[in-house]
Each structure stands twice: as C-alpha cells, then as structure tokens.
C-alpha cells in the first residue's frame, strides 16, 4: 500500500507539451503510471507519447476519471492551472515549478485546503509508490534502481536527498512504501506533518524517514504530533544545514525555505526539538538503515 496514490490512480499532466513534461511523462508511462490525458490550451487533439492532449482540464475530466494532476506549467501560469484543476474536482495536485510568486502560492494553498485537496509542492520533483505509481520526474530514468518497494515512508524537503534516502534504504535491504518530495519552498501545500499523519494511517507503512532543513516550523509541527501521540510509528529524522549557524541569521543558502529567521528554526534547534519529542535523529544517511533494523523493522 501507499499514501496519496496507488496502482489505479488516474493522472493528467498540465502543460504536457513542454519539454520536461513530455520527458517525465514518457518515463512515468514506462513505470506504469496511468496517465489518461494532458492539458495544454490551444493544443487540444495532439498526442504526447500517445497521451491525448485536451484544451482544458474539464475536457479531460469529462472523458476520464482523474484522481491527480501533475503541473509542469511555468511559474507565471501555476495559479490559474492549479485553480482550474481544483475547479474540475481533482483532489491531488503535484506542482513542480520553482519560483512561483508568493501571492500565487498562498492563494492556491488556501484554495486546495478549502477544497479538501492535497497539494504537493510547489517546487517538488514528485512522489513515488514503488512498483505502483510515480508522479513527476522523481527517479528520473531509473526509478527502480533507486526506490524499491518496502514498508518505510519517506518525506523530504529535497528531491535529491529523497533519492539518497531511497538508495540508503535499498543498500540496507529495506524499501519504500511511498516517497514524497514535499518541495523546498517556505510555504508548501501539504506540510511535513500531513504526510506523517497519512503514513500513520497506512497499514503498509511501519516507519517514516524525514529529511529537513533550517527555516519554517515543519519539523516543530512533527515534534508536537509525536509528543502528543498522534504520530506513533517510529520517525527517523535527518536535518541538514547546521553549518548555517556559523553565519548571520537571514542569510539564505539554497532552498527558499532554508533561511533562519529565529533561533527555533536552526538545524540544531530542530534536532533537539525532535529528539525530545521521541524522534530518532541521525547525523548521516548511513545511520538510517541500521537504526530501523535495531527498531525491529
């Protein structure tokens, strides 16, 4: 089993005629993802790797049951495309674009929450339920080489580190139930705790691994849920970016969110907060698998 997607999830790709979208669509199809349509206004009737292109999302949903949409539209078009997908009743959106204007981000995040929809991203390379479904560029051309099926749920700020965690688990003889790149922006649709709460309810997930960075209160929210007992499955956390504490606050290194605004947002503070809540905090990828084994997983 898995969270958010499974083998029967039907997917459309908004902006499918773009280069990256077409590339990822090809590899998703090969992986077995059921992509039932694409949307690019003005390009209705074309085909991309055999997938029919529609002019609007509603045209696609009129023809197919659509469970999820992956958005490859450029930052300036994200707001309208996301609102269009929500308006058509789609309840899982994966937004890949980085640098979406903040006002657009908060609008679509609020609209998704109001609609009761799951919004993954922005700035995500997608999610994968190994052997069942993958949305987005996650795993690239060799998803099976990185993510093997198993019982560990993974959520990461960074798409690249998600792959490293997948490889580390594989090296330790473990596998992944679902791996999600939640996006590196300050404000994301789903927050870290939302994924962990879904994993908590997934009978096929025994433990979760999270990768965090300085900035935002995502890890703090996780610590609160673990401390209060609403997250009971073991959580392993790797938090990078301790080096930033050597430099003045307000300096941003990389991801938009990875900027320290106050003392509770540093990597050290997050590690401490998670550890006191009962989360297993590790310093390196190599520690994850042995730790899970010690926990009997």
């Amino acid at each position, binding site marked *: 089993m898995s969270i958010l997607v499974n083998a029967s999830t039907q997917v459309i790709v908004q902006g499918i005629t773009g280069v*990256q979208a077409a590339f*990822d669509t090809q590899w998703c199809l090969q992986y077995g993802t059921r992509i039932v349509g694409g949307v690019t206004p003005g390009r209705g009737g074309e085909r991309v790797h055999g997938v029919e292109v529609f002019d609007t999302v509603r045209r696609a949903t009129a023809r197919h049951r659509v469970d999820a949409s992956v958005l490859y539209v450029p*930052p*300036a078009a994200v707001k309208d495309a996301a609102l269009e997908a929500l308006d058509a009743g789609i309840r899982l959106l994966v937004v890949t674009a980085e*640098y*979406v*204007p*903040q*006002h*657009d981000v*908060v*609008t679509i*995040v*609020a*609209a998704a929450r*109001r609609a009761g929809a799951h919004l993954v991203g922005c700035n995500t*390379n997608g999610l994968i339920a190994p052997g069942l479904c993958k949305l987005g*560029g*996650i*795993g*690239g*051309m*060799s998803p099976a080489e*990185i993510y093997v099926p198993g019982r560990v749920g993974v959520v*990461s*700020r*960074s*798409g*690249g*580190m998600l*792959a*490293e965690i997948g*490889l*580390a688990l594989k090296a330790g003889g473990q596998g992944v139930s679902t791996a999600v790149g939640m996006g*590196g922006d*300050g*404000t994301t649709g789903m927050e870290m705790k939302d994924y962990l709460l879904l994993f908590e309810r997934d009978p096929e997930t025994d433990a979760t691994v999270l*990768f965090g*960075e*300085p900035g935002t209160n995502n890890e703090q929210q996780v610590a609160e849920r673990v401390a209060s007992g609403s997250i009971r499955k073991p959580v392993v956390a*790797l938090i*990078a*970016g*301790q*080096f*930033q504490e050597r*430099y003045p606050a307000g*300096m941003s*290194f*990389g*991801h938009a969110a*990875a900027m320290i*605004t106050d003392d509770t947002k540093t*990597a050290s503070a997050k590690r401490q907060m998670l550890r006191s809540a009962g989360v297993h905090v590790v*310093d*390196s*990828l*190599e520690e994850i698998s042995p730790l899970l084994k010690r926990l009997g997983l």
Partner: protein
Amino acid sequence: MIRLDEARTKQWLRQAGLPVPTGAAAVSAEAAGATVSSFAGPAVVKAMVPTGRRGKAGAVRLADDARARAQVARELLGTQVNGFPVDAVYVEECISIKAEYYFALVLDGAAPRLLLSRQGGVEIESLSRDTPEAIVQAFVDPLEGLAPWAASELWLQAGVASSEVPMLAAISCLLYDAFCRADGLMLEINPLAIDASGQAQIVGAMMGVDPHAMFRHPDWAQSRDPLPGNPRERAVELANRRSPNGECQYIELDGDIGLLVGGGGAGLYQHDLLLSFGGAPANHCVTPPLSADNSKLKAVLTAILSNPSVRGLLVGFNFAQMARTDVRVRTLVEVLDEMEVDTSRLPIVIRLFGAGEEQSRAMVEGRANIHYMPRGTTLREAAQRIVELTAAARQPNEAAA
C-alpha cells in the same frame, strides 16, 4: 526581496487611490530645487535610502524654497545613511502631523499578516520589544482579502477613536489591495499620519516586492540590491541576472575547499559533512538543475576556481534523476582548460552518478588528481575524501610559504 525606493512605493500607492502627500525624487541639487515649480511651500527633503531611523540620522530635513531644497539635497547626496549610499533625495510637501499610527503587511507564511498600532512614528522593533501589547496582529485569508469590518475591528482593538475607524478601515483595505497587486512581501506605513484637518496621510512608506513576480512588474525588475563587492560574487550575480534559466548563487566563505553543489538539501548536507571531517568550505553555491544552458554553472565554477584560497574542489551531487551528468562534467573540463588550472596541485573529487556517467568519466580520465568516485560512493565518503586530499595538497604550499 526587491526593495522599492520611497518614490516608487509612493507612486504605486498614489495610483491605488491612497492619500499620499505630493512629492518627487531628485538626483541633483538643481532637480531638488526645481520641485518648487510643482509644489511650493513648506517641504521636507529626505535621503532616499531603504532604511528606517532616517530622522535620527539627520537625513530628513525641512526646506521650503528652491534654494533651501537644493542646499539640503547638496548636503545629503553622496553621503551614506545607515550604510546606504544616498544617490537620490525625496522632496515632499510638509504635512502638519497630529497623530502617528503604524500599519504593515508581511507575507512570509501561508497568509498575509497585518500589523497595526496606534503608536506609530517609532521603529516597530522597539515597539514590539517595549510595548508588544500596543501591536495588533492578524492574518488575512488570501481567498477573502481584507474586509472593511475586519479592519475596523482591528483598529478598535488598537485603541483608536471610533470616529477615525471608518477612514482607517477604508485606507487599510486599499493598502491591502495595493500590496497584493504589487506582489508585496512587506509594506510598512510608518507613520500613517493624521494631519491637522484629521485626514490620514501616507507619510512614511517602504515596500519590498517578490523578485519572482517581476514578469508582472517589468518596471521594477531593475530595482535590485546593489551588486556584491566581492568580484567573484559579483560575476556570479551578473550571470544570474543575464539569463532567466534557473538561478545561481555564490557566497564566499573563509575555508579552502571549493564546493560545487546543486544548492538544495544535498548542498546543505555536504557542507555539514565537510565541517564534520575538519574541512572548511571556501564557498556555498546554488547551480540550476537545467542542463540546456550551462552559462550559470560555468560562472559558479569560474568563481570557485578563481578564489585564491581554494586548495581542493568537491563536485557533489545527488544521484542525478533528471539532469545529465556529462553536461556538468563537460562544463568543469571547459573551465579547467580555459583557466589553465593545474589539477596536480588542486585535488578534485567528483561524486556524480546518473545519465551520461560513462561519457563523464571518459572526459576526466587521464587528468591528474581528479578523483571520480566509484558508483555507489556515498556523499559522506566523498566529503571525507576531499577533506583528506585537500589537507595533503595544503602541506607543500604551506611549507613553501
């Protein structure tokens, strides 16, 4: 965040229908004097710098006629105020102020945050330290916007007189709409003044806008922060501004291991790892994931290799899921050759696996001291290796010195 100057901020608010005193920017004493032709009478001349406490710094002065306006401008232009060079002044009609309120909007989370207070005219930092209860804070639902009745409630909570509430609420709603249309990340009105006739006036105004929304505001795209002083940081920032394909960043630090990373999570992780092994990164960087245009990657590599402190280089990337490895390695080889870098004295560790890897390995084969790690090497092992190799490379240099 792009900080707009006072003239641009006020121009935007004026066009949004807000009560902004008449004023104009001037870049010379003559231009400052000439403002009398559009508005005569009592005026203030202010150094146009994006900072508070200008009054305390002596950078806000009264000047009425043309000669006085020109004289103050002459004194202010070319100086520094709170660390910012004064390239322009803002000349504005003088408002007689009866009361000073505070209004701000900030977008740094999932919803815009509104802050207001009856105690304006002082810095918000000192207000929040000394009398935090004087600041009223609320989040605005981005789908609903700011309703006049909600704004009225907040001003009442702030303790203003009932008679002023309708006016302040109307202004707050206009400011909220102007903030959203500007793609504002921060808007501070301090003071939001009440003049002698009881009318509200936007006297102090600062706005920061979203650099990623400049496609909606092409006029503001050039209002960016000044270029960094460090020549290598400056070169990378110029390359960044030159083309729209992804973003690059280069921040020089005090260590001696050059760090070429993507810039997301793995960049942070490797930086931590280098420190844990006793190494010290010479920089942090961000390189774009797209491989179509390598100019930004090239700019960052050139900066790293031009840094005289660099004694080793770690090219450390996650298992490549999308970008091709050979594009990165080809760029590395190009820069090494163009700069005629003697790699026998500069160890390079490459941890880069994925599409195009065979070609990548072939490109560096036979080059001295380039260590392309075997597939499966962890980020940690690569970090340890470059720390060891750099330590070894450092020895003869230091012995020679």
